[in-house]
């Protein structure tokens, strides 16, 4: 089963992201959650997810700090941002660090479909 880690310091946003994954057709994913980058790092090492969907601005460790740490220390994991900020400079920094996409909040199930299909394959 495909495993996805949803990282956001807002419990409400984690619920919305998971609900949107289901609305986009990925209802059978194994989803785990983390509330910041530090928790996510532990979860990635423990769960080896197929994809990380990560907020940018979080306490403890931000999303971009997490991605940078993964790049230097591993493990390698497919990584995309879901964030309320989508400036050109942030998109460029995310791309330079190897993020596969940056989805700006607010989003729709169609937005998720467009960004995630190349990563997870077509939803059923």
């Amino acid at each position, binding site marked *: 089963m495909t495993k996805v880690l949803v990282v956001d310091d807002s419990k409400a946003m984690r619920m919305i992201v998971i609900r949107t994954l289901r609305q986009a057709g990925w209802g059978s994913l194994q989803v785990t959650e983390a509330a910041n980058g530090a928790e996510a790092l532990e979860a990635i090492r423990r769960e080896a997810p197929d994809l990380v969907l990560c907020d940018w*601005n979080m306490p403890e460790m931000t999303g971009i700090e997490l991605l940078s740490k993964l790049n230097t220390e591993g493990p390698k994991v497919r990584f995309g941002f879901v964030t309320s*900020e989508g400036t050109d400079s942030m998109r460029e920094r995310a791309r330079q660090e190897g993020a596969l996409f940056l989805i700006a909040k607010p989003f729709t199930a169609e937005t998720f479909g467009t960004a995630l299909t190349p990563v997870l394959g077509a939803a059923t």
Partner: protein
Amino acid sequence: MTQSIQHDAVIEVTNAVCESLLGDVPEARDQSTASPEGISAWVTIRGAWSGNIEVRLSSGLARRLTRELMCTEASSNDDADLRDVVGELANMIGGNLKALLPEPCALSLPSVATMRPAATPDLVQAFSLRGDAFEVRVSRERRI
């Protein structure tokens, strides 16, 4: 790139956030509507533009949003789920408005309180959502 945040931008961003979260677009109202008493959530922006973006809403609306988004009943304004929901509302509206400002700017994590930030707002945009009033308030910090 604009140096300030205008009413049209606040309305456009707030409508998009509410439609995405709630499936409903609020009605923009004039400023004569009485300010809602209840709870405030805000984010602070620091950089080429510095100030606060605040969302102020009634306790009743905050509880309704919490019920709809998290399927939980909040008993008070101190409820963790309620504070999470209104904080994320401010984060999304503030984050999208920040994208309209000159770079570089940094966005804070949201703060939530019954008391409000002391600054006098430069812009107040009132909305009505299913009969409940809420406001988005923009306060620019001026450095002498």
